[in-house]
């Protein structure tokens, strides 16, 4: 009993070590006073300084943030609508349409969007095309989260709102939206993290010109692996971590107040 418990503990520690040690090393070496990621020389903030002086990298960050914010806003609005529709109309084909992009191989989505933008829409590739592309694959994730939340709720609540004098819009704004808000925010955060680090679809739909963060990092690695990459990776990690903490906080507090039964 004791021994098998110990074994489980060791196994768990090893698995998590395997997952987290590389991340820790990236962060540690971002402060290393050496051009190489090989041995620890001394502490410095030089690489962060270099990062903030790298105009192209800053442009890439700015572009990626613009894309991630716009795509997650659009995907959250459309995905919430889709989630509501799937729940409201028990149409069998609707979930298939909405959820398929999640399961599609990214490369396929990338290629098909590229062809669609160039040949059907005649669109110049750039930020707009990337935002549209990211929105399409994020909608499904938001819809899944919103639908899961609605599934746990008593449908009578929404009928009660109408029954007691609320117009469809009032009932959405005063009852439906507050109740699904935790799911909406979780969906938005998820869309943001999916968008900001997306490589494959971005690669296909970006065209030439504007630098985008994941692709910028990839280009830099092709030249040389400098601790500047560690620095930008660490910052990205920090941002994602913040998102995760916010969304778990939301889950425990807001979901409880909104729970039914």
């Amino acid at each position, binding site marked *: 009993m004791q021994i098998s418990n110990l074994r489980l503990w060791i196994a768990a520690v090893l698995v998590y070590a395997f997952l987290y040690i590389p991340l820790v090393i990236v962060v540690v070496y971002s402060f290393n006073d050496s051009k190489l990621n090989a041995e620890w020389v001394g502490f410095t903030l030089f690489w962060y300084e270099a990062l903030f002086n790298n105009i192209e990298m800053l442009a890439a960050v700015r572009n990626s943030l613009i894309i991630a914010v716009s795509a997650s806003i659009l995907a959250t609005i459309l995905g919430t609508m889709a989630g509501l529709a799937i729940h409201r109309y028990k149409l069998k084909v609707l979930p298939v349409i909405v959820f398929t992009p999640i399961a599609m191989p990214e490369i396929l989505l990338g290629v098909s969007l590229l062809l669609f933008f160039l040949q059907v829409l005649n669109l110049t590739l750039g930020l707009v095309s990337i935002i549209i592309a990211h929105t399409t694959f994020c909608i499904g994730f938001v819809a899944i989260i919103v639908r899961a939340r609605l599934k746990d709720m008593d449908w009578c*609540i929404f*009928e009660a709102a109408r029954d007691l004098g609320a117009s469809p819009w009032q009932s959405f704004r005063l009852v439906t939206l507050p109740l699904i808000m935790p799911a909406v925010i979780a969906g938005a955060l998820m869309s943001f993290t999916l968008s900001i680090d997306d490589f494959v679809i971005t690669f296909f739909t970006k065209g030439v010109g504007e630098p985008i963060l994941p692709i910028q990092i990839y280009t830099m690695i092709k030249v040389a692996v400098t601790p500047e990459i560690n620095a930008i990776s660490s910052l990205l990690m920090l941002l994602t971590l913040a998102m995760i903490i916010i969304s778990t906080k939301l889950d425990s507090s807001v979901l409880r107040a909104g729970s039914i039964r």
Partner: protein
Amino acid sequence: MALLEIHDVTKHFGEFAAVNSVNIAIEAGEFFTLLGPSGCGKTTLLRMIAGFDQPDSGQILLDGVDIVSIPPEKRPIHTVFQSYALFPHLTVESNIAFPLKMSGKTPDEIRSRVKESLDNVRLTSFANRFPHELSGGQKQRVAFARGLINRPRLLLLDEPLGALDAKLREEMQIELINLQQEVGVTFIFVTHAQNEALALSHRIAVMNQGGIEQIDDPSKIYNFPRNRFVASFIGKINMLDVQVLEATSPQLRLSVMGLGEVAAPWRQGIKTGDKGVIAIRPEQVQILHYSENLGVADHFTGKVHDYLYVGDVTTYIVELCNGLLIEALLPNSTPGRAKLFEIGDSVVVTWQYEASTYLNG
């Protein structure tokens, strides 16, 4: 003119007729109950009155105006749902204030009316609680308060007592009757519990398979069921197969297969030779020891087959001489005595003919 008139309303789900040409007229101030087994169409009918479902055909008139095309929020009709459907993200106070806010009342009026309403349902100290912090009975009081606060013309109640335990349900029944008398709002109550319907209603519509079997006040429904469905759905009843021997006012003479003749009250439209049943409530059946049989007109003999003692009353099951079983309910009003008959006792079974009903078919 009745407050609510339902004219020939029909509603199909696919091929299935959930509600089939129903006609009802409900008067202002009435406590009206739709009673029937699950799937009889009572909830569908309620949803059409509330405006959540549209009838395929027919009219629903409120004060003489057809409301079929009016959306639920524009109807002066509110609903108390079986699950209460309180808004989980709003406090008790905000839940109750919701209908007033929707109808654009001033903040001052809302505040004073919510305060009054909280007082009425004895929930003033719970004003700032959330629904998940309330007991079942408290949630229900909030649901009633919320349904009534904007003074609807009609309050619909969809099995609101169904989720409560037996003792609380009885308390709430009394509270509900008092509430309805106080506010004077017309109630339409939906239930499958016949005792609840009998206890609460001014009138009951018994529904079955999308249609109405009988609309009457509770004692008429109980004592004079119009057909076998109503008779067997409401309370317990004995039914014996009979054939009509003579049909002349004021009495029917009936032949009970293998037992003999009995009388039943005469009704229009019953002819000699008709086949049907004679229905008699267990509490109307009298049992006498065989030796006590002194000049009772219509009677059958039998033996006590079994009995069921439940404290206040005992149900005796008597096997008649043709093998049929008949139930008799006797109050245990003699101090210290649990039963008046033993299994195997020879007895005589009889009833006053006015207490029985002949039903065709």
